[in-house]
């Protein structure tokens, strides 16, 4: 029951107003209202529905992050994206009998680093298990994972997202990480429906994965998307995973259910096949909506797996997973328990410290995490929080910004405008990365310095910026000179120009004298137009005001 009785009548009043405005708007509004408030039974609201709280969505994420390592988790085959099919497959990966798993230390270190960055407790002893199921892309008939005792537990991911009409209010939230476990990736199967066959590529089979399980503490697609974006930044900063969703390095499955707060959790569905953060938000929101409609029309939500269809924006049931699988977990007998040590001192005698994973050693290697970077940017440079997000989100932008700041004397806040609007604007329109920018930090700093020293006006500077973009080999001064864009600072000359404008606009002068100050802007505009923007608006305004009064 989404709407209370009084709310509903309020909605009807609004409806009547809108009818007058436009017919089409009325229709869309009506359709929308009915959609969000449920079925037609809502038309007779009962008095007691006032007390029932709204249904809310509950979202928990299961994330598989492909570990960035040279070789696979249990074998020496290389890990590479886009290699010829079945060219990176060892005997163990193909499950030939007689081969045994040998644990890759780099993968353990990656998991520990990630656990430390997410404030997890690292289990000093963790175990490996076999999870059995039959599928063509899993040659052994089981996956080696960590079901009983994973490598890290009880962490927390702090993320932020923007709210408010201008999306400039930062809301910080956190979600608990239940556990991080090491496991094998499966191969890839490509279905060839034409020839009724499935092609199997085992290059990916056996690659190390970190599975991160989050508690169901998020409420909607936006929160999930923000959490995943933050996680991507963290993993990239650590170097443990490249976290590119489109390339399958980060795979996110969403567990979605709906309920009324205070009541037990509803039946959940699992949504898979999500290829980007944007799709994640869409998929979750669609699924929450769908479940609410099902419940409100008296149906029940099935515990099933659904795939997200990016074209339609819907989730559709997947036919492969039928019923609940019993994975017949069994301890992996070929791998002894995994021990990680607190410090060099806690490594037992007879064990070479260089051969084992030591937590202290890894803690010392932790790089600056995104949240720390952002705080530092805000504190050091006095920029707005929302800008710190943009700087950290874009690869290389923070360094770019800080270089420019170093080379100019102006307030960093002013540099932000250049970096976020002009630079990023151009980069985005051409789908370029910061590293591919034709304008280097030096060049931009030069430009900014010219504006500061009043050699060119700020509006000219923007023009020059675009010229520099097109011709990166030319220096700033060169461009300004070529196009004769130097600022007019000579007072006499300014006076002359202003006088000219004032004289040619007697009507406007009269209007100003009579009290309408706003028309001054028109005169200023004229001055700018005549001088091709090579004047300082502040000075011009002062002169004009004097002349007019």
């Amino acid at each position, binding site marked *: 029951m989404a709407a209370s009785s009084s709310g509903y009548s309020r909605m009807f009043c609004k409806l009547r107003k809108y009818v007058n405005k436009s017919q089409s708007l009325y229709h869309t509004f009506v359709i929308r209202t009915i959609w969000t408030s449920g079925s037609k039974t809502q038309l007779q609201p009962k008095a007691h529905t006032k007390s029932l709280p709204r249904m809310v969505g509950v979202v928990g994420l299961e994330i598989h992050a492909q570990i960035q390592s040279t070789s696979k988790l249990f074998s020496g085959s290389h890990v590479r994206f886009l290699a010829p099919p079945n060219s990176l497959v060892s005997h163990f990966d193909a499950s030939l*009998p*007689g081969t*045994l798993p040998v644990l890759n230390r780099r993968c353990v270190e990656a998991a520990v680093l990630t656990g430390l960055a997410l404030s997890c407790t690292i289990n000093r002893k963790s175990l490996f298990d076999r999870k059995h199921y*039959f599928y*063509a892309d899993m040659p052994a*008939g089981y996956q080696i994972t960590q079901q009983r005792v994973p490598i890290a537990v009880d962490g927390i991911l702090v993320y932020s997202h923007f709210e408010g009409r201008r999306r400039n209010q930062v809301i910080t939230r956190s979600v608990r990480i239940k556990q991080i476990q090491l496991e094998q990736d499966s191969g890839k199967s490509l279905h060839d429906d034409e020839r009724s066959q499935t092609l199997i590529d085992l290059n990916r089979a056996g690659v190390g994965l970190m599975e991160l399980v989050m508690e169901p503490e998020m409420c909607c697609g936006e929160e999930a998307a923000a959490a995943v974006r933050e996680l991507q930044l963290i993993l990239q900063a650590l170097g443990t995973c490249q976290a590119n969703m489109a390339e399958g390095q980060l795979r996110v499955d969403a567990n979605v259910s709906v309920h009324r707060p205070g009541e037990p959790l509803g039946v959940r569905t699992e949504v898979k096949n999500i290829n980007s953060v944007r799709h994640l938000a869409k998929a979750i929101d669609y699924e929450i909506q769908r479940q609410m409609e099902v419940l409100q029309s008296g149906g029940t939500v099935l515990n099933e797996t659904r795939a997200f269809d990016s074209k339609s924006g819907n989730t559709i049931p997947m036919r492969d997973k039928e019923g609940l699988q019993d994975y*017949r*977990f069994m301890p992996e*007998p070929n*791998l002894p328990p995994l021990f990680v040590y607190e410090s060099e001192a806690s490594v037992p005698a007879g064990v070479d410290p260089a051969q084992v994973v030591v937590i202290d050693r890894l803690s010392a290697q932790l790089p600056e995490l995104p949240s720390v970077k952002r705080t530092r940017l805000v504190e050091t440079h006095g920029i707005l929080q929302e800008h710190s997000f943009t700087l950290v989100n874009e690869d290389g932008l923070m360094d770019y910004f800080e270089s420019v700041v170093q080379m100019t004397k102006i307030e960093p806040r002013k540099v932000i405008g250049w970096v976020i609007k002009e630079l990023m604007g151009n980069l985005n329109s051409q789908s370029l990365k910061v590293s591919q920018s034709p304008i280097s930090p030096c060049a931009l700093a030069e430009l900014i310095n010219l504006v500061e020293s009043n050699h060119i006006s700020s509006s000219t500077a923007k023009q020059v910026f675009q010229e520099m973009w097109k011709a990166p080999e030319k220096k700033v001064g060169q461009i300004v000179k070529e196009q004769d864009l130097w600022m007019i600072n000579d007072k006499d000359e300014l006076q002359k120009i202003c006088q000219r404008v004032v004289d040619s606009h007697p009507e406007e002068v009269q209007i100003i004298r009579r009290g309408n100050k706003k028309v001054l802007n028109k005169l200023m505009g004229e001055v700018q137009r005549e001088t091709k923007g090579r004047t300082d608006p502040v000075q011009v305004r002062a002169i004009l005001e004097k002349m007019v009064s």
Partner: protein
Amino acid sequence: ALGSDTGGSTRNPGSLCGVVALKPTYGLLSRHGLIPLVNSMDVPGIMTRSVHDAATVLRIMQGRDERDSTTIQAPSTPPSLPEHFDIRDIRVGIPKEYHALGLSQDTLDQWSRVATMFEQAGAQVQEVSLPHTQHSIVCYHVLCCCEVASNMARFDGLEYGHRSTVDSSTDAMYATTRHEGFNNVVRRRILSGNYFLLKSNYDRYFVKAQQMRRLITEDFTNVFRSGIDVLLTPTTLSDAVRYSDFIQEDNRTRSAQEDIFTQPVNMAGLPAVTIPTALSCRGLPIGLQLIGQTLQDWKLLTVAHWMEQQLSFPVIHFHGDSDERELDRSKVTFAFTAMTRLQTIAAPEVILLHRRMLFNTALALSARSTAMGPITHHSSAPDHSEPCNRTPERTKGK
């Protein structure tokens, strides 16, 4: 020869064929390359003509292999078994629970004879108890089936091996391939194993069996801690059974009987060796097993070596020293017959003890400088005082 010993699959044929068969401590020999049956119990087994040869092979093969994460560093091992060894320093334990139903009179007699032999030589021989022995075989079967179900999951015909022609769906292909490729013994074990591993059954079967396994291991630990050096037990219930008799019972029952003395050793990961002791009434070999403490393989072999020397069970010898390695076929008849009988009763998972393989390996190991005389007939075992007829029985077909 190399075999694989999961529940006695090396020691059993070794005993029935009259050769030395050693199962080293779990983790001493790498399992890389060994097709797995039960990963937590499998050990490559060593079959040789003499204890000295087994010791030689062990010394070469033992040690950590980075391709097998369950291997351990081998204890420091001298170049050969000790020349001078005082048996009076040794305490031999006789587990009373191993006096099992079905033990043949011949085997029982040999068991007491050898125990007496140890005692008379000055060693301390005493009865000990391994109280959980009665549960061992069932526990072994549960764990064996669970791991078999898991290890056999890879045989789906996709990457290698037999693939059925049914291709209506991947599931159908898998199901028929596996049904066609596995015989009913394996299928039975897979189904049982999967049943035990179901979430609802896991605690009652798998976990329970592992707990029992721990108790069985502790039985051994306690006995060894009390000062016992080695345990002396039979290896099999009797000499080699005729095929026609063997097939009277199903595989599961037979396995339970055949493995009864050998599988607790695999459960506990201990080293054990079977030594050919004497010939039975029917002229077939009987072996006895010595079980040692974990990682005390060398001590075990030292005692075994002493025992072998006392028993003088006829070892297979060959013509000449170097060039003429011709086998005198007429004199080999007896040995061949014994081995032929063995072939027909081998348990499915045994890496088949082919008679040619045995001879070839025996040739390879003929570094032994002792007399390479013509193959002698086993008639001169000094202590063998059985009055019954020892000519081999003629079987009416197989």
